[in-house]
């Protein structure tokens, strides 16, 4: 389950969003991707999960729609950039978008079912559903509620649950703690640890440095589309320049 991102570059027209970014995540690891606004964290996750490739196709020929995507994303020996988004999901590499992005008009259960659509075996779907409900009991209480009416933290949990329904082996979580109250943040922190405990590898982006540093042992610092540093929280904090310029601590 090793993920290797090699020299990936993304350009929107002439604006460089990612410039020769490389990183690697080993199996069973939990790795953080930190950096200020506009650093390209979300774009990197979107590129890995095949959404940028799709956008590139879909926007071809429109004004400002010229997207350049270079480099390679190696996951289990396959180049993810050559695959389409649903094929990537089929291989167990799943993205949880920022703020959960649920299907707002559907119920929570329908959202989870939509996530399970690649799985054909009804029994496995039932098992996965049980597992998700065990992990996030709050979702069970909300089963029949319309997903547009649940809270921010629940939306993030729903997105993670949806990914688990798709039988994720590797989760890309985009800003799990964004817009959450400290108490809910702490709860979500435990849940993500539980997910990791189930043997799922996690790469997550985060702006809340404290949250990320508590959760993951290894981090990448991204700024203005460039990889600035890599290391454990202690290493990053001991570097005066990194600490002041990018972590703001």
């Amino acid at each position, binding site marked *: 389950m090793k993920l290797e991102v090699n020299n990936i570059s993304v350009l929107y027209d002439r604006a460089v969003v990612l410039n020769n970014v490389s990183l690697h995540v080993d199996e069973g690891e939990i790795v953080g991707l930190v950096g200020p606004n506009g650093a390209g964290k979300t774009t990197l996750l979107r590129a890995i*999960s*095949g*959404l940028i490739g*799709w956008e590139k*196709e*879909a926007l*071809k*020929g*429109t004004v400002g729609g010229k997207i350049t995507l270079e480099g390679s994303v190696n996951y289990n020996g396959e180049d993810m950039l050559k695959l*389409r*988004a*649903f094929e*990537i*999901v*089929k291989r167990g590499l*799943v*993205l*949880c*978008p920022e703020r959960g*992005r*649920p*299907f*707002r*008009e*559907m119920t929570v259960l*329908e959202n989870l*079912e*939509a*996530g399970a*659509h*690649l799985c054909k075996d009804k029994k496995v779907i039932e098992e996965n559903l049980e597992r998700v409900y065990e992990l996030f009991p709050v979702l069970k209480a909300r089963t*029949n509620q319309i997903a547009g009416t649940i809270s921010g933290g629940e939306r993030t949990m729903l997105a993670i649950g*949806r*990914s688990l329904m*798709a039988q994720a082996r590797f989760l890309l979580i985009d800003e799990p703690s964004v817009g959450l109250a400290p108490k809910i943040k702490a709860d979500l922190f435990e849940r993500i640890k539980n997910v990791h405990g189930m043997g799922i590898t996690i790469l997550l982006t985060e702006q809340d440095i404290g949250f990320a540093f508590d959760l993951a042992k290894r981090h990448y610092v991204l700024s203005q589309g460039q990889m600035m540093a890599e290391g454990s929280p202690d290493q990053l904090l001991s570097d005066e320049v990194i600490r002041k310029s990018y972590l703001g601590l």
Partner: protein
Amino acid sequence: MIYFNLFFGWIKQEIFAIPGRVIALVFFLLLIALPLVTQDPFYLRVFTLALIFAIFAASWDVLSGFTGQLNLGHALFFGVSAYTAGLLNIHLQYSPWVTIPCGAVIAVSVGLFAGIPALRLRGFYLGLVTLTFPLILLGILFAFPNFTGGELGVSGISRVSSSAVVNYYTAMVVFTVSVMIMWKFTDAKSKLLRTGIILHAIREDEITARASGINTTYYKFMAFALSGFFAGIAGGLYVHYMRIAGPQTLDLFFSFQAILWTIFGGIATIYGPVAGVFILYPLLEFLNLTAWGELLRQIIFAVLLIVALMFMPEGITVWILDKIEVKCPRCKVVNVFYRKKCRACRAPLHLVRESAHQYNKGEV
């Protein structure tokens, strides 16, 4: 006897307890009974055409209502199939049972072709491109008047049967089967097929749908093909009923009619467009019978639409169902509006906000 009881119990549970299904059952029984009540050719003609147009409107709903791919040129599928069926019948003397499926298959391939721009374009841009498709086809038809009949169209096509009643029942059977298939295909609560939930996901948020592993391209094409197929079935039936395949089947206003019927009845529901057609189409035809109605029918139609859109923005069926059905807040089972407690779990259906005065008097 025990089977009879079981069956009756099932009917009671699954149909009589749910107002929407009672209405559907009554509607279906009325459709069956119509030729028994009157054999007047005018009424049979209006309702046969209503059945055909209901398939057409529902097929627009599959594509544009459920998948969100705005199609303003839906008459394309109808017209393609109409001309295919008509020409096959005139030139090769094939029977309607062959020409209608042939027309539908051609409409599917045209649907797949029309789906290509949908991969790039969204919303109104897709609408404008689809709008031009019937116009292009009209241009082609007018370029070969010897083969296609030009502006007069192809006439003298054979009917399914010479009897108006048989024609009516044929249309009714095809209508029932088509609408059932389309409904099952798009129903998000269906246990049989999961496509409904996927189409809903694509309509709501394509990016999340992609991220959850849904092959949106595949399902969009599927919706185009299925929508084209049933519009094609409607086109074939129409041509064998009216005995003429003319340019009016590709008319711009005909495309919009499907949209008006669907929006009036309730978009993304399947039963909405059916209700829309069965309310609006006969109404306008009956207005034609009177002298004043003939003058005012367009105005009445417009006023009716405006009023409906103002007071029932989600369509008349959704509005009515909202009034007569109550979903249990706990178990989501549908109940009749006058019930106080859920028929399945006995939870109170309506929140009672009792006043302090009543509370003190011990009334609550």
